[in-house]
């Protein structure tokens, strides 16, 4: 039977494909990360039994007019160091068929999608982190009328990839999002420089109740709306989401409703950009499996309100991650260009950027509430009602100035306070405050050759946690195809003498258009590797890492 089906499919598809292929097109990419690791007693790194590790991916997308289809092959043989342990084997990790025209966009199989800010629903992939909560099911998006977009999703989320096969979460996720672009209806708005978009979303999950202790709601709904306003160069947008009773591992099986709000306001003109953001989150962990932990099967995405830092010491030692159980956070961001030719600005002008972000514990009022009564409502809370307990504060400034045709200089200062009782990055107790300075110098030797160097220092207040760090980086690039760099990191100020470890590494890379090969060798510090507020811990290692990527 199976063979017959295969044969039939083969003949059918052969005929179809021959006629169609002439017009269609294929695109995709390939990425491979290979590691050869050795033991290193100074950093407690052990060589894995296999000695070498590899992650590989290949995406193939086919499009022909409205028709689309695609697959992704994945291989973990075994997975690279620090990658989540729910990935092994080789096989098909993602596949879909779809059709799209001006009215409909249908996808069957695996898909990614986002409603609004993602607070209520976001299925996405971040391969570097091993994060992939893609859906398996059906997605139908409709544009029935000008300015109206309807999105619907139905399916289950990917939980793991074991023996080369996807495993999906037990819960079913259903969602709908309806958006109106009012400018399409009222052209006068655009004439008067207004832009208005309004939208509403509803997402619900179903998971069977197998719990013997509580009567759990099998269906949990979540709903909310968002509004985007802009007038000339001002903008204001916000989203408010309510989540119904959703007792879970994350919230210790309480029956509180959850709520979350995100607000952004901005203004910009030539040479100046200002952004103010605020966020209040309470009991908003939303997963398609109530027993899931870590970064597994999240339905909603809670963006952290902090700047994404890129300098090594700033990004890896004390990063912030969103607190789904509750946080009240604010951020201000200013980008300013001091005019060229002015006394302060110099010949080319000077770029200044300031950023301030902070997060606090939300206030949970328990007066008059008995935590153990049959309602299991544990506390009362209000939006933006915060306690004095600091989770996070980051004040940073960057000044960039091009001195002449050859030299560009960047100066950076960061002051970061992180509550380690909440974020638990190391064993240290309380708030770890650090001062970080970075000097970044670029020298253009000629049109194609450039040298760049960074000098970074991190000093913790009262020598807390692991004390002081320094990093030096030298990078040499030959446009358009070569780069070489050396990095030396040292924990020279660690209060424990034998932990004053140095981490030297060298990298070399070659680029051929859309193909890139990079090799790095040396000792790498343990650290949190974070993208978009989701983090993965990578243990210390010593060895060779080769990365190959290609797009076609």
């Amino acid at each position, binding site marked *: 039977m199976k063979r017959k089906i295969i044969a039939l499919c083969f003949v059918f598809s052969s005929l179809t494909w021959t006629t169609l292929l002439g017009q269609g*097109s294929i*695109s995709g*990419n390939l990425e491979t990360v290979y590691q050869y690791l050795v033991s290193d007693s100074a950093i407690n790194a052990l060589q894995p039994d296999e000695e070498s590790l590899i992650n590989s991916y290949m995406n193939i997308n086919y499009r022909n007019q409205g028709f689309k289809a695609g697959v992704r092959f994945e291989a973990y043989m075994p997975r690279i160091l620090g990658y989540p342990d729910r990935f092994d084997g080789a096989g098909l990790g993602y596949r879909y068929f779809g059709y799209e025209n001006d009215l409909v966009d249908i996808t069957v199989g695996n898909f990614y999608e986002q409603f609004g800010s993602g607070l209520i629903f976001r299925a*996405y992939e971040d391969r570097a982190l091993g994060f992939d909560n893609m859906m398996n099911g059906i997605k139908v998006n409709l544009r029935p009328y000008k300015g109206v977009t309807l999105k619907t999703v139905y399916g289950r989320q990917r939980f793991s990839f074991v023996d080369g096969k996807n495993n999906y979460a037990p819960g079913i996720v259903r969602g709908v999002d309806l958006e109106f672009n009012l400018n399409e209806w009222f052209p006068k708005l655009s004439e008067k420089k207004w832009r208005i978009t309004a939208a509403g979303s509803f997402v619900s999950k179903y998971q069977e109740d197998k719990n013997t202790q509580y009567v759990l709601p099998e269906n949990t709904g979540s709903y909310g709306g968002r509004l985007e306003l802009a007038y000339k160069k001002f903008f204001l947008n916000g989203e408010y989401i309510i989540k119904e009773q959703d007792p879970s591992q994350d919230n210790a099986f309480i029956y509180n409703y959850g709520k979350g709000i995100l607000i952004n306001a901005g203004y910009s003109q030539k*040479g100046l950009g200002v952004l103010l953001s605020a966020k209040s989150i309470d009991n908003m962990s939303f997963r398609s499996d109530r027993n899931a932990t870590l970064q597994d099967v999240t339905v909603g995405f809670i963006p952290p309100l902090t700047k994404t830092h890129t300098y090594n010491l700033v990004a890896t030692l004390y990063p912030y991650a969103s607190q789904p159980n509750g946080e009240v956070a604010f951020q201000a*961001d200013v980008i300013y260009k001091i005019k060229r030719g002015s006394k302060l600005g110099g010949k080319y002008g000077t770029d200044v950027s300031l950023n301030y972000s902070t997060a606090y514990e939300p206030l949970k009022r328990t007066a008059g509430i008995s935590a153990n009564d049959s309602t299991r409502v544990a506390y009362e809370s209000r939006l933006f009602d915060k306690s004095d307990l600091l989770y996070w504060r980051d004040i940073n400034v960057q000044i960039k100035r091009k001195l002449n045709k050859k030299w560009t200089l960047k100066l950076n200062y960061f002051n970061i306070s992180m509550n380690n009782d909440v974020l638990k990055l190391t064993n240290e107790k309380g708030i770890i405050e650090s001062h970080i300075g970075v000097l970044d110098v670029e020298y253009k030797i000629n049109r194609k050759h450039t040298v760049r160097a960074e000098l970074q220092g991190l000093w913790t207040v009262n020598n807390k946690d692991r004390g002081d760090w320094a990093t030096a980086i030298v990078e040499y690039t030959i446009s358009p195809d070569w780069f070489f760099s050396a990095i030396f990191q040292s924990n020279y100020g660690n209060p424990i003498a034998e932990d004053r470890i140095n981490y030297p590494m060298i990298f070399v890379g070659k*680029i051929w*258009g859309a193909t890139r090969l990079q090799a790095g060798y040396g000792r790498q510090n343990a650290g949190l590797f974070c993208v978009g507020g989701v983090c993965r811990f990578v243990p210390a290692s010593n060895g060779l890492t080769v990365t190959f990527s290609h*797009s076609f």
Partner: protein
Amino acid sequence: MYMMKTTFISVLAAFFLMTTIVYSQDEEKTLLDKKVPDVQLKNTEGETVHTGSLENDGKPIIISFWATWCTPCKKELNTINDMYIDWQDETGVRLVAVSIDDERTKNRVVPYVDSKSWEYQVLLDPNGELKRAMGVNNVPHTFLIDGEGNIVYSHNNYAPGDEYELYDKILELTESSDE
């Protein structure tokens, strides 16, 4: 589940077989000669843009994937911005900057772009739809599209000086179309 997999495998098998046939039949047009896939993205004004119908009057288009947190991306786009007027005068090229910032940093895009006075068309791809469709692994990734909408060159990385290579490719396109 199992059925689905076998179907997929057979379709794929057929697919690759046919690819070779098509290659041998038609040497002019191959599967990898491709255009920009059509994905609906929003621009910074909140309007929907069909990426498949981006056009520039028969002149080349640069599509550059970037993010506000990506230092080399910003370096590349700021460098090109300084030369953009000359590039436009000489070749008529247009640059479309596709931001892959997600919700964490998406609201930074407009203040950043305005403060740097970029003259580019900026599109937002917060959930990576065009990024996936165009096979982009990481940013910066820059594509060059010829006057007929074909992707003729792409480069993944930025080092100072790469803008000259890109401009040489643009000149090759405009000079060959002048002949």
